[in-house]
């Protein structure tokens, strides 16, 4: 992608930069909650953005697919209904996304813009969003985005991108961030970054070096084509008996997955007033596929666990040519049964 310009922001000046972004935008960024857990959350103050976080446990998908989204509200009186659409989304910035989380946004884009029924609420929020990615020089042991071909220094699909300079992220010694402006939406943030100096020759060399080192860290790629082909042939295999067995059927993996996007539509009614809302849902729940008749085509956890893997690594690839997994490792971190998706993929690859 053509870089429009590059500014250098000292780490100590990041709150000033974030504060400037917050003028006229809601800003979603990595922050630590009271328990010390890194999560993506809407900032109330610029200092809350935390640059020591790796991949926050709560993904940034809430910026585009809130946990609860009002589709419309209504008022009923004397047999007549008045329907009010929700207000248009405010301009917002998703800040500090790891390249794998940026890839996850691409997955959501593919799903929610698919014809014949592009999802208007999603697209409206997406259009109102400026994406600022962030490069990482270190990789948490749970993260396997490199194995999926995602380079943690890649700025593609971002409007702007932060490259940490000097020192590794693990030692928390990053002293400056290089802000790459990549699109018109990025340029529109000029007021926030204009006060910072342009990158000098040495900075440009440091950025190039960081990218070069990242690219040089070759890891064996997972062969997604092989996995997809294998999955097409093992729908009825006994393998799923083993894979699902430790799963307790909670929705932690799906709710914290940056690409899982299934939802339920519910009515929230109080007297004459009501709202039609959509809320996060997951194929891991029995209720997800239970028909009105009571019949459930995915009767047990076996079918539900299979669905999760199939959707991510077969159906997604077949329909949108992109795996619905970005290797962020969140599901590995939160699974109470430690049912590691990397091991599941290995079992599938090795299965004869």
């Amino acid at each position, binding site marked *: 992608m053509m870089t429009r310009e590059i500014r250098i922001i000292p780490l100590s000046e990041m709150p000033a930069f974030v504060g400037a972004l917050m003028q006229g935008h809601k800003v979603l960024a990595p922050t630590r*909650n*009271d*328990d*010390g*857990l890194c999560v993506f959350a809407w900032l109330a103050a610029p200092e809350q953005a935390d640059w020591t976080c*790796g991949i926050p*446990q*709560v993904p940034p998908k809430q910026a585009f697919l*809130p*946990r*609860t989204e009002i589709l419309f509200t209504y008022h009923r009186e004397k047999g007549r209904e008045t329907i009010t659409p929700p207000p248009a989304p405010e301009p917002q910035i998703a800040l500090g996304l790891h390249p794998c989380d940026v890839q996850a946004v691409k997955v959501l884009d593919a799903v929610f813009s698919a014809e014949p029924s592009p999802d208007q609420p999603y697209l409206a929020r997406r259009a109102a969003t400026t994406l600022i990615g962030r490069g990482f020089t270190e990789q*948490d*042991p*749970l993260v396997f985005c490199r194995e999926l071909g995602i380079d943690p220094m890649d700025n593609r699909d971002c409007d702007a991108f932060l490259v940490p300079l000097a020192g590794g992220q*693990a030692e928390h010694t990053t002293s400056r961030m290089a802000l790459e402006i990549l699109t018109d939406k990025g340029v529109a943030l000029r007021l926030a970054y204009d006060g910072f100096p342009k990158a000098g020759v040495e900075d440009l060399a440091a950025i190039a070096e960081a990218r070069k080192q990242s690219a040089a860290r070759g890891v064996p790629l997972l062969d997604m084509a092989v996995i997809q082909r294998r999955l097409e042939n093992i729908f009825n295999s*006994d393998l799923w*008996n*083993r894979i699902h*067995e*430790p799963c*307790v*059927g*909670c*929705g*932690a993996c*799906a*709710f*914290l997955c940056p690409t899982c996007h299934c939802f*339920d539509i*519910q009515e*929230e009614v109080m007297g004459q007033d009501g709202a039609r*809302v959509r*809320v*996060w*849902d*997951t194929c891991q*729940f*029995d*209720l997800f596929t*239970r028909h009105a008749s009571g019949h459930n085509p995915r009767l047990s956890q076996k079918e539900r666990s299979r669905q999760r893997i199939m959707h991510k690594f077969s159906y997604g690839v077949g329909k949108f040519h992109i795996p619905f997994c970005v290797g962020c490792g969140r599901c*590995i*971190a*939160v699974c*109470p*049964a*430690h*049912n*590691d998706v*990397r*091991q599941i993929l290995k079992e599938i690859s090795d299965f004869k």
Partner: protein
Amino acid sequence: MPKQVDLKTIARDLLTKGKVEVFIGYQAASLPLAAAPLIIHGAKDSVDASQSMAPDAERDMMARKVAALIFDDRCEMNLVNYLHKFKDRKTAVVVKGCDSRSVVGLLQEKQVDRKNLVIIGAPCRGVVDRRHVAKLMGCDASREVDREGEHFRFQCAGSWKRVKVADAIYTACRECQVHNPVIADYWIGAPVPQPDLPELTAEMEALRKASPDHRWTRFHKEMSKCILCYACRNLCPACYCKTCFADACKPKWVGRTDDPSDAMLFHLQRLMHLGGRCTGCGACVRGCPMNVDLRLYNDHLRSHVKQEYGFMAGMDSAVHPPLAMYSMGDCNEFIR
């Protein structure tokens, strides 16, 4: 006193001699400081998970899995939850003190048949809270735990740190009153001493004295973290309703929005269902991806049941739980 045996030896014996169809134990997980459940199917499993395998391959897989069995400070999961999956099959399960109380609970509620169960008791001094250790170490990837008397040694990014056992284990373990299994057919270790603990923890005393406003603020804050993924419910051995109230949709009882009142309603109802049944194993707290601290509320409930009925859940399978029985001698007239 049950016989002390070696974990792998007894597993191999039970599985190869067809004394059990399924063995549920622990194996090292892919994450540092964590153990994952390991479910092993025996040669005589009537619903074998690997029906299509050749007998040799099947035996190999069983042997490999038996060799992978572990029991140590990492084994936090309450495996009793899996008994619901293997209801009518002869099953062996590894239980810590806390987990053994869940077995008693299920026996009391006639959810498992003692005849089908082989209980492998594991005396336990507490399991490591890896998220807390990560915080102490300032590193999310602490590994290589090593126990030296009353200290653990943790390694992180090349440096070692000694941490007191009491600082590294879960709060539920620090407050545990049952380190040794209350029911078992075999033990895989020597009994461990049970420390003397006050009837009510200082935290509970403080909570009881706190103003309603303070308690409400705290409850609101805890509930605001919940994302309604139901990991707490799905991990709880005592939560086995075929259709949970939270999944009822004709009519819908509990909403699923991010309004904290939805999480409150879910957790309050679940708490009510667990009154006199929760054994305090802490599975719900450990499994919560959002660190919702349900422990305090469960503790509160348990301390009330103990005070009012002198009852501790999951201690004796011959005793009826107080909220599941009545007595003609009850002091309350309405119940007689």
